[in-house]
């Protein structure tokens, strides 16, 4: 039965007690890697497939132990500050093991399907009351073989499965994954091709095709299309209308959700040493503003807007 015995996946977080993104109490598994590069990405640590060393500076007691064990001499203490040359080494095991504060860690872990299922079913008692697992990322279907094997394994355990995907993958991947999914969240961020390329790095043809495919499949009622509202970019009535038109033209009963802007993402960018798209962090939208956006979707015929009350 263990066809995927050697299959390993890279996971950057397993979060229990997820109360959004699906019914009941869930465990969300964040798979590493994403082909896209949204400038506002909420999980910048999940983009690269490569494992990175993470250093949690606020936990460090500057004892210097890691500097003495690191064979590559990639870690040094200079004037009380720890300097890590992340490019200088691949194997940080000894440094990580030496740290009394556990503040050196890899940003992701590699698991087999079995290991991950075992880890997740610890909350099976919670899943029984309408909960389950959600695959997120990165783009969870980027590690396609692993993701599909994982979903299959969860279905074999009788666990409800959900996914959050950008759908920027080959259609046969989507097709295979659908077999084992109970709930599918698809991000549709930007309708305009050029803007999509500008902000996300690629055009959206593939995404549109896949959305069409899913909304024409027998799982179409288990799909929720979502647009994260990013100020000055996706949060634009024209964009919302265009998306709304597109999806209702495929399936008039489609479910659609607008996600409020999340100002918390910015803080993560310090950890991964990248630039966030906003120097000045915008605020979240008020309920009134949200309703205006929702109205734009309703105006083009969206009947089922998901609104959390």
């Amino acid at each position, binding site marked *: 039965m263990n066809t995927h015995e050697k299959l390993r996946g890279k996971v950057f977080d397993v*979060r*229990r*007690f*997820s*109360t*959004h*993104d699906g019914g*009941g*109490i869930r465990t969300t598994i964040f798979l590493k890697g994403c082909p896209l590069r949204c400038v506002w990405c*909420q999980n910048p640590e999940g983009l690269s497939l490569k494992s990175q060393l993470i250093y949690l500076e*606020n*936990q460090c*007691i500057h*004892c210097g*132990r890691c500097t003495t064990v690191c064979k590559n001499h990639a870690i040094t203490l200079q004037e009380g500050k720890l300097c890590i040359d992340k490019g200088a080494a691949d194997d940080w095991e000894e440094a990580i093991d030496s740290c*009394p*504060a*556990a*503040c050196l860690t890899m940003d992701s872990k590699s698991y087999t399907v079995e290991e991950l299922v075992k880890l997740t079913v*610890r*909350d099976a*008692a*919670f899943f*029984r*009351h*309408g*909960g389950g697992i959600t695959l997120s990322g990165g783009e969870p279907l980027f590690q396609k073989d692993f993701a599909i094997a994982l979903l299959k394994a969860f279905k074999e355990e009788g666990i409800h499965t959900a996914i959050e995907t950008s759908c920027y993958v080959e259609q046969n991947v989507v097709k295979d994954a659908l077999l084992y999914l109970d709930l599918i969240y698809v991000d549709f961020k930007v309708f305009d091709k050029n803007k999509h390329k500008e902000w996300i790095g690629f055009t959206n043809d593939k995404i549109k095709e896949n959305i069409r495919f899913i909304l024409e499949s027998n799982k179409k009622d288990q799909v929720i299309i979502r647009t994260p509202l990013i100020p000055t970019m996706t949060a634009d009535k024209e964009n919302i209308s265009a998306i709304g038109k597109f999806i209702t033209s495929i399936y008039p009963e489609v479910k659609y959700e607008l*996600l*409020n*802007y*999340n*100002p*918390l*993402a*910015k*803080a993560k960018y*310090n950890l991964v040493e990248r630039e966030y798209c906003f120097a000045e*962090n915008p605020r*979240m939208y008020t309920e009134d503003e949200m309703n205006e956006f929702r109205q734009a979707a309703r105006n083009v015929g969206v009947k089922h807007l998901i609104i*959390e*009350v």
Partner: protein
Amino acid sequence: METLIKTKRVALLKEKMMAEPRYVSIEQALIITKTYEENQEKPVIIKRALALKNALLQMGIAVEPEEKIVGNRTIGVRHGVVFPESGSSWIDREFETLPIRPQDKFNVREEDIINFKKIIAPYFKEKSLEDIIRTRYGTEIDEIAKVVKINQKDHAQGHICPDCEKWLTYGPEGLKQEAIAKLQSGTKDQQDFYKSVILVMEGTQAFMMRYHDLLVEKAGQETDAANQVNMREVAVICKKLCMNPPNSFHEAVQSIWFLFVILHMESNASSFSPGRMDDFLYPFYKKDMKSGSIDKQKALEIIECIWLKFNQIVYLRNSHSAKFFAGFPIGFNIAIGGQDENGNDFSNELSFLFLKAQEHLGLPQPNLSVRLHKGTNEPLLKEAVRVVAKGSGMPQFFNDEAIISSMMNFGVSEKDARDYAIVGCVELTSQGNNLGWSDAAMFNLNKVLELTLNNGKCLLTGNAIGPDLGNLMDYKTFEELEDAFAKNISYFIDKMILACEQVEKAHIDILPSPFLSAVIDNCIQKGKDVTVGGAVYNFSGIQMIQVANLADSLAAIKLLVYEEKRISKEELLKALQNNFEGYEIIRTMLLKRAPKYGNDVAYVDELGAKWARFFSEKLSHYTNYRGGRYHTGMYTVSAHVPMGENVGASSDGRYAATPLADGGMSPVYGRDIAGPTAVLKSVSLLDNHLTTNGGLLNMKFLPEFFKTENNIDKFAKFLRTFVDLEIPHIQFNVLRKEDLLAAQKDPEKYRSLTVRVAGYTAYFTELAGELQNEIIARTSYGDL
């Protein structure tokens, strides 16, 4: 759905109550002293009965014109009552400091101090419970004080659920008649017992009548017509209750309140709990609703009036005790919902009205508890979560699936177990027939581990307080260390039991309680006071303090010293002896490189469960002074702070004299970083027989977790799983702004705190300062 409001009357009464200053009262103490002086030759139980009767006849009483429920044990509300039979020496020592002590302050009148010192203290010197225990067994109690805190040394026991149903059925006249019928037969002791019951019931009737008279008098002077009507109405009820059992809902509630006032006047003790009030008041409610004499709003007003009353009795503790039980917890615990006697789901309109009253008033009393089980109806569960969301930390939740069977295994009948209620905070009891002595002692397991690691010597003082079985360096294997630990636990259990027996014996000698006994089965039948074992069930509860720290400490030693050998025995011992000064790296490793209880890691959770089991098993071999069994609980009110003061640096990385984990089953603050589901999983590893005396799991959440109906639903599901996992208790602390400000200052303690914004969860303490501020700004839960 109809909207039920908090009426003007209730708002006004609440306002008046909150404005009252808190004073110490010696009025009853003077009456008691005089009665004792005049009746020197009589048996104690008769003296006690006469003293109560005289208090019922003579204490000043007062009413508010708006009150629907009247009665109090002092003329002012929220007065701290001096009770010389149980303890007067401590008051003698602390009287002047009561207004300025750090915890639970009271105002004091100059002349009271003088009278107390002149009249009361001299008479009760060497006669009070406190002094007698001190003389008989004080040295031994002191010797083990750092490990075991023996309770009930200077006050009556309390912690009991009276038989409210019986009281409502018979009233004082009926109970008096029951005693009269028994008077002729029996031994001298039995006859004294019955005589004393008759005396206190006579006092009770007179007390009720005095309220009638006062109300009639005041109504005559009242200018407001509505108030006049109200006072006359309540007067009629008081008069009726002297001779007859109640008929209407209003009468029944008034009758219950009289019961609790008088219980407090007799014992001056904490935690007389009404129990399943939605059960025993329901017949009255149903009848009145049917006849149309009340509607829901009227019923709610009456309920809210007694809810206010529950806040008018506070309890004066000595300054040491006040640290352990801070904030005057008086323990009017009311249990709603749960299974009925056949195991079916039970709740009714009263259950919902009680929740509504809690939501409206948001006061610390009563301590509202919801019993859950697999079949709990969704509306009750959801409504309870909505009330929790209001932020008062109530109601708390108990789990029939965990509790009923373990009570039965412990020897409670199926019928009584299904009908269980809670006394005080979380102590489990059958109703109306159980002197559970649930707060007999607290046993500090962490101190015993400290002594085991350090030749029986206290790390704080260097004094030898336990047997010298060696120190960490002597134990070649972890098993050797465990052997020594086991021996030390047994040594202190032996000493604790002897002390508990002395305390119980002193209660028999000094504090027989005929009024209480009249409402506890089978005291009247046996002609035996509760203190001598008149109740059907006679347990004693010992709290294990604190398994979370113990598990973390043992896991750190086992893993880092014996298995991975990251730390040498010598280094660890030195680090502990020096309170980690100069050993910061060791402390960091203990904190960060060993698994912690509360994260669903079997390695550590099992160590905790194992030692709790060991302790509980040892204890089960002893019998208490009333012939009943000992059992264990895992809860503290605020005792984790003073108990922590007694413990030196510990191997879980905790500094000397700092608090232990709060709650009892809860993980150490901030160490549960795998989320709430992992906490429940860890806690569920503790066998239910470890907490037949009560367990407490405290979880903290931000108010935004409860903001949407969606999340209320998730919480309901979380609680359903809590039921499935058979955890006995859970309560939710909804954090306020102040808590978040504290978290900014002291992130270590709040590491487990998560926040959510627009579909994204993060650890609060790991957020950047500006974002923390933003979240704090959003967390605007003002005072209720």
